[in-house]
């Protein structure tokens, strides 16, 4: 019987204790003054862990902001690089255009020179033909001159002979 009563008392004590614990957190009031809050160890441990987590989340937020700053700097750097590359491309295009113009001018010059050469060749051929004709004319004139001299000499001799005979 004693054992039964002891067991019953122990059971009731445990039940009351558990009921009290399950009611926590509770205000700790002394003489109608609220001095604090009573928590179970488990609840305090949870709060302790949550505070640790909160600190880590704050750190994570800072890390995120820091990383964002880095990314923004990289993006700015890349944008500046793109602008420089665009300037470079524009300059290269202009240079290419300038060189194309230069090539076209040189081609035109070559074409003009070829035309000039053809014209000079044509003039040279004409001159050669003219020289050949003039050479023939000179030969004819020389022959005529020779024949004239011989004729004059013959005439002179004939006249002298006739004068002598008379």
């Amino acid at each position, binding site marked *: 019987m004693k054992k039964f009563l002891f067991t019953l008392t122990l059971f009731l004590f445990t039940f009351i204790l558990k009921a009290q614990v399950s009611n926590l957190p509770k205000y700790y009031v002394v003489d109608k003054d609220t001095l604090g809050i009573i928590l179970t160890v488990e609840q305090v441990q949870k709060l*302790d862990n949550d505070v640790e987590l909160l600190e880590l989340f704050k750190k994570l937020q800072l890390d995120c902001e820091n990383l964002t700053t880095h990314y923004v*700097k990289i993006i700015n750097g890349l944008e500046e690089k793109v602008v420089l590359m665009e300037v470079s491309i524009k*300059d*290269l295009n202009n240079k290419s255009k300038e060189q194309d113009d230069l090539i076209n001018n040189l081609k035109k010059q070559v074409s003009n020179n070829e035309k000039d050469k053809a014209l000079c060749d044509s003039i040279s051929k004409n001159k050669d033909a003219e020289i050949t004709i003039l050479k023939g004319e000179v030969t004819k004139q020389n022959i005529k001159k020779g024949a004239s001299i011989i004729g004059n000499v013959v005439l002179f001799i004939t006249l002298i002979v006739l004068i002598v005979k008379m």
Partner: protein
Amino acid sequence: MYQNRVDSVGKIIKVKNIEIARLKKDAKEAEEIMKKTKEQIEKLTNEPIKRTGDELLQSIKQKTK
């Protein structure tokens, strides 16, 4: 004229590339730090710290300062 400009812009681009590489390195380091913080959060979420006794009291005192 254009060639000179292209050359000078090329030099600036080289400097910019070095700067970008340095910034990328810094960003990678920041990513590593963030990764570690995330791992710590994950660890605390999966395996909460369960301080006991004086350690728990000291921790709470420290946090409520």
